[in-house]
């Protein structure tokens, strides 16, 4: 699973997909996750980072990160390559 490499993300949480011309907004945590996906971090690494940084628990993070990734897939922003 990789995020499409032409996806542009601005500091203000504005996401642009040149392939389709579509734009999106993300909140800061969403932007962080996209950034980590661009750095080819795994879901486990992303979840660990969230747990370190935020006041939450492993179940919530697992559920929310998976949900977020499924939305990225829904918007065709990531490609499944395995």
């Amino acid at each position, binding site marked *: 699973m990789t995020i499409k490499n032409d996806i542009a993300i601005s500091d203000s949480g504005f996401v642009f997909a040149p392939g389709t011309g579509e734009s999106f907004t*993300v909140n800061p945590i969403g932007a962080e996750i996209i950034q980590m996906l661009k750095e080819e971090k795994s879901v486990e690494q992303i979840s660990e980072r969230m747990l370190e*940084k*935020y*006041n939450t628990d492993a179940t919530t993070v697992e559920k929310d990160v998976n*949900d*977020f990734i499924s939305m*990225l897939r829904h918007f065709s922003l990531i490609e499944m390559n395995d």
Partner: protein
Amino acid sequence: MEKQRYERPLIQKLENNMPNKFGTRTESAPMTHIDDVAVKDLMDKYGSPLFVISEKTIRTNIRKARKAFETRYPKVQFAWSYKTNYLDAVCRTFHQEGSWAEVVSGFEFDKALNNKVDGSKIIFNGPDKTEDDIKKAISNNALIHIDHLDELYSIQEIAGEMKKKARVAIRVNMDTGIYPMWDRFGFNYENGQAWDALNKIMRSEVMVLEGLHTHIGTFMLSPNAYAVAAGKLADLAIGVKDKYQHEIRYIDMGGGFASKNSLKGTYLPGSDMNPSIDEFAEAIASTLINSNFPPDKLPLLILETGRALIDDAAHLLGTVISNKRLSDGRRTTIIDVGVNILFTSFWYDHKITPAQPFTQYTENTVVYGPLCMNIDVIRDNINLPLLNKDDHIVIQSVGAYNMTQWMQFITLRPPIVMIDPEGEVHVIREKENLDRLLEFENVPEHLKDFTL
């Protein structure tokens, strides 16, 4: 390093027509306190869900309403509509503020007597008054508002047997230009039914015609409809005076003023759109004053206002159980408040405000209750801040009809607390428990034992 507050990650597609001008308005601040009492403390102590009533708001509302009418009309009397919210603590707050009682059943009548309301200050409305109810009303000198001819004949007979005069009024229905017309209750003005009933009462030896009543509908948005109705009742009263030299003591305009809630399907919030109590007061008072009553013979004006006095005095606190997605990607949030305790979610788009801080990010969400039923939808589309599991929410303006029309279903009904003007919290209805509910049930002997 201290950990930061968590918010679930969010991505939303920007549509060409975004941002939408309507329907995207959301709360800018959490509702952390009600009358200076912390929502979190209330939920820690009394659990979730929890109804919270503000005594201060009730008193402010009734005082404002009285002022709106009393500054425009010389003789005004409010009567608290029991069915809107008949918790004793609520009724007694209204009675302390001078309101009489308006009831529609023997049960409500007994509740008003139990609240120490003098029988002569109880207005008895509704189509279903049993013989016992009528006897009780007559012996307590209550004001009986007759709904149909069968009732009129029963009163005639019972009062005759009791050798005691019944104090009566008739409920009148009429065309006020409002659709649908509420013509199933009372006697019609336009087709002469009302006059027919008035003639029967005036010829009766055992009934005294005290007043005329109407209730033209509920959640009315048109002050003018009240002006039309007041004009027609004034006409009847003056007609009775001309024909029988009998003075009608009061005109009762019923309830029905819209509260500040938003009806389902309307774009702009009710707080911006709905007429104020002053507009209704102006319409009614000016019509009566400009009618043909001699200035010193104006009848008492009675109002049975319900929802407009209590809706915004109560909130329902709840908790997020889970966030999910529907198969089409739509966000859903399940809360522990179901339609069985929030009946008004069928009519209103209730405002839902988080009880803890949130960011500016929002998501269109369907809010479901916890019942295992498809109809259990609290909001079918609301732009909500990002709530986490276990977060608290405040559903606003739930004071009317919910605490009387609620159902015990699947779970036990929650407690109700009232915050007094000094900030003291009182449990005014306890949380239901299994033992009390089982007191109503009996198991036949042959069903007591079984083996599985």
